[in-house]
């Protein structure tokens, strides 16, 4: 048992314990909570990187929490999808850096530690969700990050935030219930909660009807978390009204958890011979395609910058699901990489938009005219990220779209490729609109003229993310190579 394996539990333990300590430690010095949170997330990041190193060296590995071998204990499992935790930790780290100057402006000073605690717990929950190999543990950590996400949305001021949070909560809770119900069904059939074990024992089950229902319930439950059309209704409200770093976190990371949840479900139970996943996959394709177009069109008509970005998330989730639904190695690996790339891009987008909105006090796109002159770096970062989200090569957004488009062709769906491309074009349309507004229109609003560039801490996070959203596009091949082994089980069902 090497030290790295303990990291599987530590990536959960460290951020959560860190988060739990924050309110107690920093009651008197709320603003200092930032440093502690940063340190814990950095530690988490370091641990997750060591995990990835081991993964690369030895392949997927498990960790029996408490020393109990599965199925008696909870097995944590690290594979190439789990490697996403490194990216999520990284993004959380950058979001924290960004928050240093942003959060004191929108959150009462006494509650600042709460914010950091929630972010850390969110990270811990995400990590736990991603590394667990146990169905019920999955549910528990899903609730951990969900509850913290509801709360983070509600941390914003204004009547919209509370309403958005409760809507998010209601849908999220129902989805959690569906997941729990599905877990109950599987448990009742197999008597185990370990995913691999359960998948193996499902074959022996008397009937596939409960299994099918469980799978459906899991999928729908995770679809809500992932905000796949038509279950995305909570997302625009929540992501638009939350504070910018929270929006970044939610759009970049939290919705991805739902996606990875579905991948895990499909992957685990795809071996279940009696079950045909084909209808499910074509359903995903359809929904994904509609999501791409719907999200893009809805984004086109938004006047609120953050709401627009929220709809862009709907689009991109659609892309990912198209890729998953196609299921071929090309498309699914593209989808998998897009999970990461979109996380980075969307974080860049929301943070940059947050900086612009924060510094100018304006959030309507038309009001932001000419802000590019005042805040060149933030606006540039937003521009780069917008191009990336549109999938302009060689940015990060291109990788996924290329692979998904290629996969569509491989499986003889040229129209789907058309959808992929048209979606990208629509995204580009509003991306260009924003870039145009920022850089090439004279200022309209007096606040624009008095705005100043964002402080260094915010800028650092934004620029790093924007740069990554460009550079990751150049790293498309290694990333695809990285996920390729993880994709294989999915491919068989395609």
């Amino acid at each position, binding site marked *: 048992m090497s030290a790295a394996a303990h990291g599987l539990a530590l990536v959960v333990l460290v951020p959560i314990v860190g988060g739990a300590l924050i309110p107690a430690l920093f009651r008197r010095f709320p603003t200092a909570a930032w440093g502690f949170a940063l340190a814990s997330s950095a530690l988490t990041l370091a641990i997750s990187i060591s995990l990835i190193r081991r993964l690369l060296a030895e392949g997927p590995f498990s960790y029996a929490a408490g020393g109990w071998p599965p199925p008696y204990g909870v097995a944590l499992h690290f594979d190439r999808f789990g490697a996403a935790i490194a990216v999520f930790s990284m993004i959380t780290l950058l979001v924290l850096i960004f928050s240093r100057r942003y959060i004191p402006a929108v959150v009462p000073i006494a509650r600042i530690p709460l914010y950091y605690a929630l972010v850390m717990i969110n990270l811990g929950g995400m990590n736990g969700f991603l590394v667990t190999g146990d169905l019920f543990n999955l549910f528990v950590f899903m*609730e951990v990050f969900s509850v913290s996400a509801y709360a983070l949305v509600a941390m914003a001021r204004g*009547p919209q935030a509370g309403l958005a949070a409760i809507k998010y909560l209601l849908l999220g809770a129902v989805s959690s219930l569906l997941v729990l119900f599905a877990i109950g069904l599987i448990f009742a059939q197999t008597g185990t909660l370990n995913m691999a074990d359960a998948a193996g024992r499902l074959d022996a089950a008397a009937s596939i009807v409960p299994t099918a229902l469980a799978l459906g319930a899991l999928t729908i439950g995770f679809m809500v978390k992932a905000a796949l059309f038509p279950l995305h209704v909570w997302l625009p409200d929540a992501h638009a009204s939350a504070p910018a770093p929270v929006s970044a976190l939610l759009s970049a990371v939290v919705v991805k958890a739902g996606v990875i949840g579905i991948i895990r479900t499909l992957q685990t139970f795809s071996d279940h011979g009696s079950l045909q996943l084909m209808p499910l996959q074509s359903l995903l394709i359809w929904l994904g395609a509609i999501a791409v177009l719907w999200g893009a069109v809805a984004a086109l008509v938004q006047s609120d910058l953050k709401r627009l970005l929220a709809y862009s998330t709907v689009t991109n989730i659609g892309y990912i699901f198209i890729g998953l639904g196609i299921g071929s190695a090309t498309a699914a690996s593209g989808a998998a990489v897009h999970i990461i790339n979109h996380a980075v891009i969307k974080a860049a987008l929301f943070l940059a938009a947050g900086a612009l909105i924060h510094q100018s006090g304006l959030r309507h796109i038309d009001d932001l005219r000419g802000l590019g002159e005042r805040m060149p770096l933030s606006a540039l970062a937003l521009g780069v990220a917008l191009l990336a989200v549109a999938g302009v090569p060689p940015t990060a957004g291109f990788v996924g779209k290329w692979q998904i488009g290629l996969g569509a062709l491989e499986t003889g769906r040229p129209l789907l490729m058309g959808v992929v491309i048209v979606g990208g074009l629509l995204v580009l349309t509003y991306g260009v609109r924003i870039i145009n507004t920022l850089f090439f229109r004279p200022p309209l609003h007096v606040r624009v003229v008095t705005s100043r560039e964002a402080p260094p801490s915010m800028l650092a996070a934004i620029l790093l993310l924007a740069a990554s959203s460009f550079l990751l596009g150049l790293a498309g091949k290694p990333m695809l190579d990285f996920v390729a082994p993880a994709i294989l089980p999915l491919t068989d069902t395609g």
Partner: protein
Amino acid sequence: MNVLLTHVDYIAAVAIFLVGLYILLVKQNLLKKILGLNIMETAVFAFIVTAGMTDNGVPPLLGPDAVGPFASPLPHALVLTGIVVAVSITALALALIVRVKRECGSVELNELGKVE
């Protein structure tokens, strides 16, 4: 028909679940929706506990002289955890409803649509 009888416990849980779902779907009052949610949660808990039930079983307390058949301990532990989670969510939901009521002046969703 026999199947329905033997599985009547499950069916009851399903029935409760549906009742909760109905409330959640139809009622516009946020508080009622939360109530519906809680009913659904209860149903799911009941469902899971039912799965671990043993006819004429005893609680899984393994004293020196304990004699089976024991009920399965696992579902109970799960449900315990589930309940705590449900409580947490309910608490947060209530807090949010209070906030919505204060800021928006209503807890009826169809009225809240007009906010802002």
